């Protein structure tokens, strides 16, 4: 394995920050959106150009500046980060397209602000993906929190204010109150914060302290919405749909989970976790979240809220997978980052498209909508298959590995959790699809004039749904990245 | 409040008293304070500056930098009183005049102020005639007071006194006039603008001499380097440098005392004063 010095990661992060002045100064909407696209394309190309290097088993490193002696602001591109960056960068393009359709279609106000903060959020996301140490990760994590605040509260009404308040309370409160002290304790114990393949905490602290740190980190990264710090996610649903999509699939929650995965593998190391028997604790925390979130999702009528609770559950799959500490489980968890992203973004796009075309938010009002919006609901169907974990979608692959992981780790309880929650997700998704396509006679709620949403809002979900299917048949690139990452962290 | 005050005071007093136990005895010639730096000043000051009053030598030369800021503090005080109290003249104010010969008071409502003449004198509403004896005595006294002030400044090298005390005395002479006559008379002799410019000129003289020393190649306030333009030896140059800064201090202190008095006694209106 070689380490290559290159400024590319920094540029990939900065692309979308650099485009901000252009966005602000552009008076014409077309030009403004053109810049957004250009930045998204450049970013994706940059990320992809690093892919072969990573696939050859190398790493790219760039040190920006040494903020504190021993802890620099430093980027490192490795397999896991690459996986996440690929997902985020490619979905940004699709989301941009969707945003244009959505925002113009609904004639939203302050579109420039929207695009600016969208770009900033993406910078932060890539920054998290490429960060080489805890400090850099924390930096971009906070940046993301702040950049998404104006997005979440885009409507600037009372509801948005309440949601924004909740969002910040949860996210900033936990990151300052829990992550920051935990990080400083780590630094104090070891003098470094650099992610290492087997963690850097080994031998530096006893079981009790390590346990406290673990809890601080898992709950501190509240973006991962591990219960009981999940309350912000359903509240944040007041945001425009592309933002929800961004929050749920591309940036925020995934960043949270990604951070936890990084902490578990890069700070603690699987060996230390196994030695202290922390795997079970992590899995238990995750399982509770999975089951409870799925049950709550069952009772939701608002489509976006239901998706939000579904997300909360699905995220904990990833944590569960890593918590199993077996190679297959970790593989499954990491793969789920990508698979869930594509599946969930499809669902959100669909929800947005339905809202645009019909103005409906509640599931109970969507009876028979499949007849009117076949493409959208088709995509919705594929997306929900992926989330449930059924073939022929990518979701199946990750879930398959998770199940194998539980077997490998000999944790039958968690196998049951996985299966049970799959059934639950089937239980909350399938009725939606069923009623959309097969309404009870005479109860279809839509007149003939309702049709598909504009093309820019329909194409993205269709594309992402298609990608989900493709990922079932050809998961190779992601799979290779994940197996490299697993090999790197020395999962036996 | 009184109880709290008492408690704090008693506590602080007890601490202070406790700490005196390690002091050298009062007036002990062998105490560190009496021997360490003091010995140097007493033995060397005269040969290095040729000023017999060691206090002046230390004040204006060894610790001349302190004294410059001391003058700065005074300057701040003058400026401070000015900015805090001085009211800008409002145009549409009523004004009162008195016909000197008859004592009739004129009340003029318009903004227009008649030309100054010897027949009319501007007064306030609350006007009481000044006592002739006091007025005359003070007017006669003022030049002597001023002369004494100048002597104190000039003779600071050899006797107690110096720029600061002399300046105060000079300022006091003007204040005396302002009290015994009225403030308009005093301001007529030395206007507000003059006072303020004098205030700046005095300290500027001090710091200017210091800066001049830098230009002549010495350190700041190193009067020895003035010997080049004064055509004397270094010791004499120091002595003259001390005189120069004392004059500067005197000017500033005088001007500041007058400013503070003017603003305080007239509530910033610079009218008739007390």
């Amino acid at each position, binding site marked *: 394995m070689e380490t290559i010095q290159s400024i590319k990661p920094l540029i990939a992060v900065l692309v979308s920050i650099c485009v901000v002045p252009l966005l602000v100064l552009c008076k014409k909407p077309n030009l403004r959106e053109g810049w957004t696209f250009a930045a998204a394309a450049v970013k994706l190309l940059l990320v992809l150009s690093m892919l072969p290097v990573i696939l050859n088993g190398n790493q790219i490193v760039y040190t920006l500046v040494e903020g504190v002696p021993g802890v620099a602001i430093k980027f490192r591109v490795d397999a896991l980060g690459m996986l996440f960056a690929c997902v985020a960068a490619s979905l940004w393009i699709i989301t941009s397209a969707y945003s244009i359709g959505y925002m113009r279609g609904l004639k939203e106000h302050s579109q420039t602000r929207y695009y600016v903060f969208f770009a900033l959020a993406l910078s932060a996301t890539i920054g998290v993906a490429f960060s080489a140490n805890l400090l850099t990760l924390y930096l971009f994590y906070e940046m993301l929190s702040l950049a998404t605040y104006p997005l979440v509260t885009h409507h600037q009404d009372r509801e948005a204010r309440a949601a924004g308040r909740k969002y910040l309370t949860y996210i900033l409160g936990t990151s300052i109150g829990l992550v920051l002290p935990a990080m400083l304790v780590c630094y104090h114990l070891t003098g470094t914060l650099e992610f290492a393949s087997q963690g850097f905490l080994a031998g530096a602290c006893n079981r009790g302290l390590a346990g406290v740190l673990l809890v601080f980190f898992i709950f501190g990264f509240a973006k991962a919405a591990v219960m009981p710090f999940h309350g912000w996610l359903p509240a944040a649903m007041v945001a425009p749909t592309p933002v929800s999509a961004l929050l749920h699939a591309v940036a925020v929650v995934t960043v949270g989970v990604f951070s936890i995965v990084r902490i578990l593998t890069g700070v603690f190391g699987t060996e230390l976790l196994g030695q202290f028997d922390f795997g079970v604790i992590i899995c238990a925390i995750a399982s509770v979240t999975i089951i409870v979130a799925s049950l709550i999702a069952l009772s939701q009528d608002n489509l976006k809220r239901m998706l939000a609770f579904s997300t909360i559950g699905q995220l904990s799959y990833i944590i569960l997978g890593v918590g199993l500490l077996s190679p297959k489980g970790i593989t499954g968890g990491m793969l789920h980052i990508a698979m869930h992203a594509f599946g969930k973004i499809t669902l959100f796009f669909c929800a947005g498209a339905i809202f645009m075309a019909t103005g409906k938010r509640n599931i109970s009002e969507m009876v028979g909508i499949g007849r009117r919006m076949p493409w959208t609901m088709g995509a919705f169907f594929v997306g929900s298959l992926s989330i449930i974990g059924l073939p022929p979608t990518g979701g199946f692959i990750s879930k398959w590995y998770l199940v194998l992981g539980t077997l490998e780790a000999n944790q039958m309880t968690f196998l049951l959790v996985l299966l049970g929650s799959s059934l639950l997700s089937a239980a909350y998704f399938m009725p939606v699809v069923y009623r959309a396509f097969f309404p009870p006679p005479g109860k279809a709620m839509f007149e003939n004039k309702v049709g598909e949403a504009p093309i820019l809002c329909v194409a993205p979900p269709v594309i992402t749904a298609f990608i989900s299917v493709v990922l079932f048949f050809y998961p190779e690139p992601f799979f290779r990245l994940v197996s490299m990452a697993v090999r790197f962290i020395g999962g036996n | 409040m009184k109880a709290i005050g008492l408690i704090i005071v008693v506590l602080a007093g007890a601490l202070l008293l406790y700490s005196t136990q390690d002091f050298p005895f009062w007036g002990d010639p062998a105490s560190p304070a009496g021997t360490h730096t003091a010995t140097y000043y007493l033995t060397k000051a005269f040969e290095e500056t040729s000023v017999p009053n060691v206090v002046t030598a230390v004040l204006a030369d060894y610790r001349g930098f302190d004294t410059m800021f001391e003058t700065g503090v005074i300057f701040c005080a003058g400026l401070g009183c000015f900015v805090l109290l001085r009211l800008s003249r409002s145009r549409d104010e009523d004004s009162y005049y008195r016909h000197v010969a008859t004592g009739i008071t004129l009340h003029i409502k318009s903004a227009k102020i008649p030309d100054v003449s010897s027949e009319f004198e501007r007064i306030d509403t609350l006007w009481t005639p000044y006592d002739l004896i006091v007025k005359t005595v003070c007017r006669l006294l003022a030049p002597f007071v001023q002369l004494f002030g100048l002597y104190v400044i000039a003779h600071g090298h050899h006797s*107690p006194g*110096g720029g600061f005390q002399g300046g105060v005395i000079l300022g*006091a002479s003007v204040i005396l006039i302002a009290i015994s006559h009225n403030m308009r008379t005093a301001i007529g002799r030395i206007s507000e603008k003059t006072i303020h410019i004098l205030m700046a000129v005095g300290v500027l003289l001090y710091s200017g001499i210091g800066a001049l020393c830098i230009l002549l190649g010495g350190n700041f306030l190193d009067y020895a380097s003035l010997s080049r333009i004064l055509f004397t030896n270094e010791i004499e140059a120091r002595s003259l440098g001390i005189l120069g800064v004392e004059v500067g201090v005197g000017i500033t202190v005088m001007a500041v005392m007058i400013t503070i*008095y003017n603003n*305080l006694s007239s509530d910033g209106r610079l009218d008739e004063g007390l």
Partner: protein
Amino acid sequence: MIWELDLAILILVIVAAIGVIQVKDLLGCAILFSAYSFLMCLLWAIMGAVDVAFTEASVGAGVSTVFFVAAVFRTTRRTKD
């Protein structure tokens, strides 16, 4: 320096100080304060600090008192304590 004289004046100074803070008229306070300053000046002269004494005489007992009186004239003589 005569220590008996020194002690006597010191005690007078303290008496003057207590008087200054207890008197219920600000003009009286000003005059007493002037006396206090003058006593202080004497004290310093006895201790050999002639320059300081000179300064105190001109500033503390002289100009300060004038300022004080001027300020009292521009405000009020009344005080509750």
